[in-house]
């Protein structure tokens, strides 16, 4: 309660100083940024007290402070803060890659591939069929011929199947969960990112043939470009990983700054070379983790986690600020059944994959809980929707609106389900006594 009072006072203070300033460049963005961090922090603590994942609190704070509600963080501030989001995604990707052990991949790789194949296919088909069935109620399908309906349903479904490595990593960081459900879900989510990018590229290429876009400024992607986007990312990521390994072996200084630099330049480099940024950093993290001495890799991972702590808060709060509540409210009769169909398909698909992979170890927990990790959507999903909107400027806006509404639902529900599943599967270690957490005394004298 006291945090909300302080936030209210801060908001009042911001109104008070309004006429006193000329608003020097960047100062408005700084104020919005500060308010977003404190607002998200307060909401995260509140969520934690209610046994809801903190990141749901961050997202809710973003919605409340963002353009859809109070507009303290307006559209321009959201755009000014995009570099923080990009940095967050890069850090998350590197951390995610560093979580993957080669030995584990060798051991579980086949199972993960089978789960992923089954889950993605079932979801893709289910969402496509759902949209085709409801074609008269979907704005970007209404009144179109069968070929267009199939093409756009497929395009939508190929982005609707995306998962969220950001949520998975943030949740595993927050809960310190470890076990079959956490490890398997992490593997599936990370690899699915690559598969979804490939799939979307293929589906878009097909859609371009079936329904050539009018007024699009994106040239058709050839097979070579797709191969470079993925292969180049692996190659550049591997080189980056080797460089990080060399740095860790011989220098090992200023790891916090180094972590930020790697994430920043990895992202920049992939943008410049037109390669998949997530895959680049995932590969870099993977190579670093698997080729460095254990203590070096752990030190960098710790530095990255430290850098990521405030970045996570801003990332999810910004994701919340980007949710268009008005659009969601207008589309809910379509979005809710769509979310249910997607969720059901993920549930069925993952169980099918587990059966196909003949999983025996912790089979019951995986069958019961794995699907919950695959529900959340964030960051990357929004980027993919933007690609579609860019390719089909006329209909892309409608596809994007429906998709963002779906993301909003999954963003809110997914983390709660995943957290419950981790709890239920007993993979969250018991909370340590306060004194043991890090021996920090309360900041305020009590």
């Amino acid at each position, binding site marked *: 309660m*006291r*945090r909300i*009072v*302080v*936030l209210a*006072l*801060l908001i009042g*203070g*911001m109104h008070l*100083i309004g*006429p*006193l*300033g*000329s*608003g*020097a*460049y*960047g*100062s*408005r*963005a*700084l*104020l919005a*940024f*500060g*308010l977003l*961090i*404190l607002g998200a*922090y*307060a909401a995260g603590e509140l969520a934690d007290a209610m046994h809801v994942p903190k990141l749901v609190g961050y997202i809710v704070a973003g919605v409340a402070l963002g353009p859809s509600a109070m507009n303290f963080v307006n559209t321009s501030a959201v755009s*000014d803060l995009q570099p923080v989001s990009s940095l967050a995604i890069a850090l998350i990707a590197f951390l995610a890659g560093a979580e993957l052990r080669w030995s584990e991949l060798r051991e579980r790789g086949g199972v993960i591939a089978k789960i992923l194949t089954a889950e993605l296919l079932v979801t893709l088909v289910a969402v496509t069929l759902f949209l085709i069935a409801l074609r008269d109620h979907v704005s970007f399908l209404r009144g179109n011929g069968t070929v267009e309906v199939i093409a756009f349903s497929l395009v939508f479904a190929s982005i609707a199947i995306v998962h969220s490595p950001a949520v998975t990593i943030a949740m595993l960081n927050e809960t310190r969960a470890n076990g079959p459900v956490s490890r398997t879900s992490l593997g599936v989510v990370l690899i699915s990112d690559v598969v979804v990018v490939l799939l979307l590229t293929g589906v878009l290429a097909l859609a371009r043939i079936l329904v050539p876009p009018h007024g699009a400024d994106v040239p058709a992607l050839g097979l070579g470009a797709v191969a470079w986007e993925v292969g180049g990312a692996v190659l550049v990521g591997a080189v980056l990983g080797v*460089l990080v390994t060399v*740095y860790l072996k011989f*220098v090992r*200084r*200023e790891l*916090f*700054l*180094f972590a*930020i*630099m790697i994430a920043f*330049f990895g992202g*920049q*480099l992939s*943008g*410049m070379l037109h390669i998949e940024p997530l895959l680049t950093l995932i590969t870099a993290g993977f190579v670093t983790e698997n080729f460095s001495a254990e203590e070096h890799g752990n030190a960098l991972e710790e530095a990255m986690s*430290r850098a990521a*702590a*405030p970045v996570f*808060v801003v990332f999810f709060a910004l994701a919340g600020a980007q949710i268009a509540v008005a659009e969601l409210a207008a589309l809910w009769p379509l979005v809710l059944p769509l979310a249910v169909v997607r969720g059901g398909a993920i549930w069925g698909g993952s169980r099918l994959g587990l059966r196909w992979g003949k999983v025996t170890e912790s089979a019951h927990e995986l069958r019961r809980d794995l699907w919950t990790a695959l529900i959340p959507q964030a960051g990357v999903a929004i980027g993919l929707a933007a690609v579609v909107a860019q390719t089909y400027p006329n209909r892309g806006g409608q596809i994007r609106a429906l998709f963002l509404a779906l993301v909003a639902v999954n963003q809110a529900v997914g983390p709660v389900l995943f957290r419950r599943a981790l709890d239920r599967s007993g993979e969250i270690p018991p909370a340590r006594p*306060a004194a043991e*957490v*890090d021996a*920090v*005394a*309360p*900041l*305020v*004298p*009590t």
Partner: protein
Amino acid sequence: MTAPFALFIAVGAGYLAAHVAFDWLGRRFLVVSGAEYLVLGILLGPQVSGILGASVVTRLDPVLTLAIAWIGLTVGTQFELSRLVITPARDFRIGFSSSVLTFVVVAALEFAAIRFGGIAPQFDAIVIASGLGVVAVSSSDAGFSLVTSVVGSAGRVFAQLRASTMLSSLVAITLFALLLCWVHVPTPLDRPLTTTEWAVVSIAIGALGGMLFHVFLGETPERDRLFVALVGGIVIVSGAATYMDLSPLLSSFCFGLVLVNTTSSPQELVASLTRVARPFYFVLLMFAGAAWQPIPSIWILPVALFLAARIAAILGGARLVARANGTLQEFGENWGLALIGQGRVALALGLSYLRQGHMPGRDAVFTAAIVSVLLTEFLSARAIRAVLVRS
């Protein structure tokens, strides 16, 4: 080679070279690391290679504000009352007097040079001379940790040097904020605020921010959560100060002062702040270098005078004040030599002055600050050791 790739290569290579080379030099010759980033920034900036373009530097303005505020915050946390009360009053008297003397001497000489050299009209000359005087006051504290690891931190002279450095930062930050309050851009209010009112606003932003932060935070069990909240707090405080064209240094200083004196575990607070202080300082150095522009030749004399007058004022002032307080024999004639080094505070002041679009002689004040940091910081640890050994 495209610009981002060149940037990646240059920064990566510079980073490694700087660390490997300066790490070795630091240990071998007691040299303080940091100035190399300034040089790197100049090399990458629009004046040399143009890899870090002017638009990039402008876009990163909020990051620079945050880095400046972080410096103010860490300086503020040095003023922990429980430690201050056990420091003899004489140490503060000496530190305060020598800082004020340095300001007065440098500002007066600069005013004479700028006004009577026909470089700027009277009002502008007063403002520029005051800006240079303020920058001249601050001394670097970077050499202390290096020296402590070599010769230890005990002794009267060491304590005095610590107190003098702290007070030089306090005096410089306060005078700079007052200068900005005095030469403030007009606001659309019916009645413009007076200098005193702006000064009160500057302090209130930090002090109220600090108090609200405590209420906001309550019990903080984890260091990461404390860090996140601290980032939020300092971003709001510095954003508010910058929004009103005030000094983010003073507001964040007050924020740190209130925080460190109300917390039950100041060491945790300081640990949270200092672990990112160096990265922030390096970022500030690099972008300060990139923001630098060559000054017209008429400003070379005031900048050169700044360097000479500052050294003379610090050495003479320190000697005079020590004599007046009866400690000259104990400290040695040239104990002021240990205060010559300039670092993060001087740079933050210079950069803050540069970013105030309405201030006259911005490039000259900034150039004086970065030249002084370049020439003196890396030797500051050696100067401190020399004084300690001699005493």
